[in-house]
């Protein structure tokens, strides 16, 4: 036969090592080991440690003193805690504005004109910049004497408003600064989402007589659900992590009115005026419990997806 060189190979089972025999069972654990180790040490165990620490009175140096739930009791009637909690909720709610705003900009930019790619990337710019820089930029933007913000509202006869110094505006001012990069993020998500919108559905809807807002609301937005979901996730996470901006822009002030839980706990646990590790941990636990609702929701929807495959 002309196919001599393709002669059948011999398949004699050799004596194989234990590893060889259990290769498929063992390999994943070998590959997982480093990641799990790191993650356990730096993330999972510390979460439980935080719970533990929250039951102690501890300045981070001396001996710990077990005080049970006293930290939580104190938290219960600490006005600064409520201010932070309230601000956290305001953050959560208003930060979500990034989603419609991002969608709006994405719709605006979803065209194929000359140079649109450059426009898209420039619009995305704020997201890449560190929150520290964003904070600085907005601090100057809001500056009551020379800030662009007051200059602009001055043109329409308003102001000046001391945004970051006024307890009624400060949180909103910082959120606006945070919305800037977050909107850019949502915009990118929606731009990719819009790319994935089934053109035939749009056409079907056009035949069905849907136009403009109706088309957007009934046909496009539902199709953007995956993008919306991600936007929601990252926005919620972003809102609860809102530390950098506050730290840079107001340091929690004026008189603590712009604090959120994450900032407050930093202040309590690690600033010169604090070093109450236990109390800080208790705040962190509360923050974690709030987040737990979202985590549960995310995991649940992921679980559904995984099962659905």
């Amino acid at each position: 036969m002309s196919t001599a060189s393709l002669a059948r190979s011999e398949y004699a089972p050799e004596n194989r090592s234990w590893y060889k025999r259990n290769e498929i069972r063992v390999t994943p654990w070998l590959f997982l080991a480093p990641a799990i180790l790191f993650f356990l040490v730096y993330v999972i165990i510390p979460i439980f440690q935080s719970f533990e620490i929250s039951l102690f009175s501890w300045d981070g140096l001396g001996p710990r003193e077990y005080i049970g739930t006293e930290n939580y009791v104190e938290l219960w009637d600490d006005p600064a805690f409520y201010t932070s909690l309230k601000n956290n909720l305001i953050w959560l709610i208003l930060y979500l504005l990034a989603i419609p705003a991002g969608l709006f900009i994405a719709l605006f930019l979803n065209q194929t004109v000359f140079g649109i790619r450059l426009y898209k990337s420039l619009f995305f710019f704020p997201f890449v910049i560190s929150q520290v820089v964003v904070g600085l930029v907005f601090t100057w933007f809001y500056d009551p004497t020379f800030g662009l913000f007051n200059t602009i509202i001055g043109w329409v006869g308003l102001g000046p408003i001391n945004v970051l110094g006024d307890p009624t505006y400060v949180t909103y001012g910082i959120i606006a600064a945070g919305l800037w990069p977050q909107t850019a993020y949502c915009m990118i998500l929606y731009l990719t989402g819009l790319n994935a919108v089934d053109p035939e559905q749009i056409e079907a809807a056009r035949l069905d007589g849907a136009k403009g807002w109706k088309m957007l609301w009934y046909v496009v937005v539902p199709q953007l659900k995956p993008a919306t979901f991600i936007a929601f996730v990252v926005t919620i996470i972003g809102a609860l992590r809102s530390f950098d901006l506050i730290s840079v822009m107001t340091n929690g002030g004026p008189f603590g009115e712009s604090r959120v839980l994450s900032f407050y706990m930093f202040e309590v646990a690690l600033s010169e005026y604090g070093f109450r590790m236990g109390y800080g941990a208790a705040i962190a636990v509360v923050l974690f419990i709030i987040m737990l609702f979202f985590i549960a929701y995310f995991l649940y929807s992921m679980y559904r997806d995984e099962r659905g495959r």
Partner: protein
Amino acid sequence: MFPTPIQKRSRNWQFTYQAFLPLALIMWLLPLIAVGVFSVKPEGDFAAGEYWSLPSTFGGFENYGKVFFESDMPRYLLNSLLITVPTAIGAVALACMAGFALGIYKFKLNLWIFFLFVAGNFVPFQILMVPVRDLTVDMGLYNTKTGLVLFHIAFQTGFCTLFMRNFIKGLPFALIEAARVEGIAEWRIFVYIVLPLMKPAIAALSVLIFTFIWNDYFWAIVLTQGAESQPVTAGITSFNAQFRAAYHLMSAGAIVAALPPVAMFFLMQKHFIAGLTLGAVK
């Protein structure tokens, strides 16, 4: 395509749109443009209260010169680099391996371990602050770049593993089976088949992690202090303290601190956006 392509609209519409684009962009970037202008204004302009006029002379060289030669900025920048690059490499490497294990193998705890990473990724990281700081202090890594890098690697592993696992899950499983039928050892399947196919994901993730870590501020101030190990985000605040009320220098400093991730974004735009969307949406 939605909205209707502008090409199908009337001439007037097209013209309005084209004209409105740059306008909208300027409005959008106004705060940033202002900082850019600040950074090239000479000191005198501020003393004279000329905040919003064009620079009377170009003070860029002087301002940026001060940033580079009269402050710790270069050191901070170097620190950032020395923190960011190893973190990106470490986190991506760990995630490639973990993602491979979770994406390819079927075993009982698979989904649970995966969810562990995912959940860890959503945790408000403040809850880790106190214990992680203690741990770092105990290991003698407080105020070292290594301490920061180790933590960042660990924390980013959650997100990276989510990303990589979903990416690998999207690879045709038949490829793995084909290799198994051919008698290729599992680790070789990882090295020779999966890893090459993950190139786009690795690129996307590296770029993403680079910007995340570069822009980190919280952990920088929790785990480090001082110019010997702090990254530029923390550096910029002490830089600002040094030049408080010297807006031209602060602006120049801010721009210097922001530049690397921005440059990264422009160079690697494709990967960057792929990273943002792919990891999550798949």
